[in-house]
């Protein structure tokens, strides 16, 4: 099924908006998304054609993973996600896991980055049985360099707490009120961004199938 992840995200959106989340909560969430859209947050992200900043981040076992080292073996897909507590993020990450054999066949690698503490990203990884590195960017230092970090509005922080996923616990003090906008960057072996997808609406992601098309083009 082509673009399966997008379909799953659409279903999830419908379910959460129409059945799960109370109207008042939706209003708070939508207001924050609109705030980001108005601030043209997506324009700040690293665009196609830019050189990606190198990084060294710990994986779920605390082992350092370096972008430049990965690029020696082929293109790298860098996926910024908000955390294991975000159902859309889990769908997106699982979508990449489903297509991992195709990425591997193309010589490409996937890494996911969130501001969660390493021990918390481990539980994300275990839960979803992800076979690609899940990296921890505490304090969103690398997210800032990719231009995708933003401060949450206070009402939203409180709302997430009431949902039972306090950011302070997941992300530590440094990342307590900051998140990355979910984003997908396809980086070629020269370190150049070949596709940059950022949407302030966190329910909309770049489908792994679309990423595969981009990588095929790079490989040509």
């Amino acid at each position: 099924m082509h673009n399966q992840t997008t379909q799953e995200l659409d279903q999830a959106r419908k379910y959460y908006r129409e059945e799960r989340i109370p109207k008042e909560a939706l209003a708070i969430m939508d207001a924050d998304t609109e705030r980001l859209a108005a601030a043209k947050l997506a324009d700040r992200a690293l665009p196609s054609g830019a050189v990606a900043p190198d990084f060294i981040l710990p994986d779920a076992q605390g082992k350092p993973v370096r972008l430049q080292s990965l690029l020696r073996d082929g293109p790298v897909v860098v996926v910024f996600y908000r955390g294991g507590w975000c159902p859309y993020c889990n769908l997106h990450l699982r979508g990449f896991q489903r297509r991992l054999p195709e990425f591997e066949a193309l010589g490409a690698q996937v890494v996911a980055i969130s501001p969660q503490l390493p021990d918390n990203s481990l539980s994300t990884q275990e839960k979803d049985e992800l076979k690609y590195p899940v990296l921890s960017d505490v304090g969103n230092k690398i997210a800032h360099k990719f231009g995708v970090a933003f401060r949450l509005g206070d009402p939203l922080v409180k709302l997430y707490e009431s949902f039972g996923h306090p950011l302070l616990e997941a992300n530590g003090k440094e990342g307590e009120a900051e998140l990355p906008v979910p984003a997908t960057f396809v980086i070629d072996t020269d370190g150049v961004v070949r596709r940059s997808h950022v949407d302030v609406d966190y329910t909309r992601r770049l489908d792994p199938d679309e990423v595969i098309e981009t990588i095929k083009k790079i490989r040509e």
Partner: protein
Amino acid sequence: MTMIVLGIALCMELRHLRYFAAVAQHLSYSEASRRLHVAQPAISQTILDLEEELEVKLFLRNNRTVQLTAAGTTFLAESEKILQNASEAQRLARRAARGEVGVLRIGFLAPAMVTLLPPLVQAYRRRYPDVELQLSHMNPDDQFRAFDEGRLDLGFSRPLPIDRRPYFNEEMIHNDYLSLVLPVGHPLAGKKKIKLEALAKESFILFHRIGAPSLFDLAVESCRRAGFSPKITHQPDMMTTVFTLVECGLGVALVPGFARGLAEQNTIRRPLAQRSSSICLCAIWPKSVQGPTLEAFLEILRSQKAALRKQVERFTQ
């Protein structure tokens, strides 16, 4: 508290080492008790247990004094290493939980790197903010000791001695040559370049040989080539002291052209009329040490090498 009186091996715990080290460091049970917040009889008993297990006496005690035995002295040095490793393990685990990655431990010759190191470190910290850098001034001999004990990942030092070459990588950063340091008012201070022969009767202050053998040997060799054996009156173990003693008028010094004293030190620096053999500054790291944190540092170093060399040329000419 459980007393271990079985006298069999493998009963030793960190607690034994902590108590023993505290007594040994202060040569006093009461002082150890105060510092550890543990009652004195408990400390005495723990050390007795330890002695029983080891089957050696660690202390010589009489009513007044406590002294370490030879066995105790040896055991203290090893215990301190173990305790240090234990606290390092604790620190690293906490860092890993906070999401910081790895440590890059760098030893460097401070006098030769006053201006070279900051741009490297700044660039690295900007790019890799989660990697902890530990920077320590170390002479070449200290660096090898630290490498041997696994306490160092990268050194900025002089070229590798032959016996180290099979086990280390070496990358040249810049070439350097000896230059002269003279006290203000020295009769030769007016000359632009100085012939070493003219200093045959002078007292020489050379950085001590154990700390940096290749530098010392090069200085002596240069004097011999100029036809004399230098009269070495002082061998300080710090480069700034070399400059201080010259400033005091105790003699002249031969130092690497790019080595610097403190800005406040008032001495005269002159190149030699006939250039000495070269003494390079190198990056060295054990072949067994690898990983992205070191690799990334070496890449920054390589990208900045041309700029570093320019800086050295400007200073030494």
